[in-house]
């Protein structure tokens, strides 16, 4: 147990911070820990959660994806065209939206690998392209999403918020098995040491492309879930998500230098970030002081992860690799 905590220290810190913040939130909420309150909370957490997972896949291979928000905007606007009508049409729509996200990621990956350009720079440029696409699909916000489907995915099942069930599925049905595949391992290897991965016989190009495709796919999932929560399409949502997704993965213990962290951490980081924002609702902090407090709590939460450094005895250790 202690070994486990030590090995996954970052995730454990993230989980503790999340629990503290969540109990603060529920403690200040007049309604307390009810299904309704938990559902509201979980829904918006999960959107950022998907975005953070998208960012995680880019970061774990030592990249950064500045197009996460743009992919969300693009897929959200696409969803607002495709998620209404017959069951068949909606089913196709869901697949098409996810595929569109994956395609954006694939494009990023191909340019990064074959253009040999830094991911952060590539995605800075493609973000602009994707936002353009989103604006084309939805010059102004609008469109509709089937309410029944939206309700099914954003309310609760037997008192448990659907968003939490989805989060659980992501962890247990997707992530834990995925981590035991060659691809899952390859992502970490690539991010931790590209040379070692290459010399071990890993197809580093393929893995990097796959990582960015996964990033796109989860960006698409974020866009899709955003569509369910808001039942509409909006091209203007890109900017926030990108930076928040980066903050979220860092809060969740994912190292920006690659190779360390997990999808669980990314999810936890996203939940932390959204819980910080939710804290403001019933905190009683004067409205004009709220943004400052949000900023301060964010800085503090980030600094907790960094506090480790002050304990290192060897000055060289802080440099990492």
């Amino acid at each position, binding site marked *: 147990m202690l070994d486990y905590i030590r090995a996954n220290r970052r995730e454990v810190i993230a989980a503790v911070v999340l629990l503290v913040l969540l109990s603060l939130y529920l403690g200040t909420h007049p*309604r307390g820990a009810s299904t*309704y309150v938990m559902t509201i909370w979980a829904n*918006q957490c999960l959107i950022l959660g998907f975005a953070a997972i998208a960012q995680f896949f880019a970061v774990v291979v030592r990249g950064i994806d500045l197009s996460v928000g743009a992919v969300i905007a693009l897929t959200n606007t696409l969803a607002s065209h495709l998620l209404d009508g017959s069951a068949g049409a909606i089913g196709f729509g869901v697949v098409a939206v996810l595929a569109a996200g994956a395609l954006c990621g694939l494009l990023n990956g191909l340019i990064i690998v074959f253009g040999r350009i830094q991911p952060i720079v590539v995605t800075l440029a493609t973000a602009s392209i994707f936002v353009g696409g989103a604006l084309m699909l939805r010059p*102004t916000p609008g469109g509709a999403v089937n309410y029944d489907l939206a309700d099914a995915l954003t309310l609760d099942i037997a008192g448990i918020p659907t968003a939490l069930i989805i989060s659980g599925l992501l962890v247990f049905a997707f992530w834990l098995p995925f981590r035991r595949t060659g691809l899952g391992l390859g992502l970490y290897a690539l991010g931790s040491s590209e040379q070692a991965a290459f010399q071990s016989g890993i197809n580093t190009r393929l893995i990097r492309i796959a990582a960015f495709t996964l990033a796109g796919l989860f960006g698409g999932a974020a866009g899709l879930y955003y569509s369910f929560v*808001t039942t509409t399409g909006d091209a203007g949502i890109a900017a926030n998500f990108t930076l928040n997704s980066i903050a979220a993965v860092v809060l969740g213990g994912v190292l920006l230098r690659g190779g360390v962290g997990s999808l669980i951490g990314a999810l936890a980081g996203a939940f932390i970030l959204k819980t910080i924002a939710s804290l403001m*609702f*019933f905190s009683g902090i004067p*409205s004009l002081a709220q943004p400052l407090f949000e900023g301060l709590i964010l800085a503090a939460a980030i600094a907790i992860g960094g506090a480790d450094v002050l304990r290192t005895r060897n000055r060289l250790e802080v440099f990492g690799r």
Partner: protein
Amino acid sequence: DTYRPECFVPAPETSTISYDAKEGPYKLAFVNGFAGNDWRIQAIQSAKAWADRPENAGKIDTFSIVSVGNDSAAQIAAIDNFIAAGYDAITFIAVNPTAFEPVIRRAERAGTILVPFDNVLDTDKVVQVNESQKELGALKAQTVMDILGGKAEKILMVNGLPGNATDRDRRLGMMSVLEKVDGLEIVEVVGNWDTGTSQKVAADALATHGQFDAVVSQHGSAGTINALQSAGHPIVPMGVDGENGVRMLMDELDIPGVSASQAPAMSAIALEAAVALLEGNELPQTIYLPIPQVKADELEAGVNYFPDLPKSFNTGTGYAECFPPFSPEEISGQNPSNT
């Protein structure tokens, strides 16, 4: 007849809405979107100023304000939270006009009254407070065309933030007037509702298109005027927004035209409407507030603009038809009872 129609002016062909009266005092909330721009800050301040006025303070049990950023999912969550916490009415500036159907249903079930304003919703199920954006656009365009005697060759139009419904409507309002002018060339640039950006794009337009007969602009018009000045452009009629700095420039430079704005004090009217509804009054579903406008020759320091206040201050401190406009001191929260 609806309640206080001089203030809560019905939009053309709108329906009416009323709810069962509730006993006060009420729990009210204002859910803002982004906080980091002057207009929004002033809207928050206006809402607080309204709540601090003695005639309103007595009706209020709790008044909460939160800002959630440009994320409609977060805004939905905030509204849901206040519904869950048993608030009586929630006003908000919608981040996205079409995202609130499910929330409206949940509010209805919980008996919470929603009053969106400024960025309103594409719905007829709740009372919403706004100025007619199309009218606002049309007013500016019409005024300058009137000054020009209905004839013009080239006009500069500085638009707002792309992808935004308010921007769309204001532009459509302007176009509805300008399209009818024969042979008019309309040069459109995107100013993002931002003084610096407006100034840049206007400067570029001036450098490449030469002279214009008139200018119509959305928020950020001071930049447009600066650009005209530094390009040595002659004074032409302008339809501009209502920031303090714009009115100062207009008066100083004798620019003919009109300054018409979306007033941040609208946040107070929304609260007023929410309370009216809670008290059982009937209101129009869509309320079009009278557009606060000042023609160039009516500009007067200390009355409709304030040389002692920042240029980014929004002169729309209230709607005289509804209640006495706030004094700048009230808005800046200089009074001690300030939460």
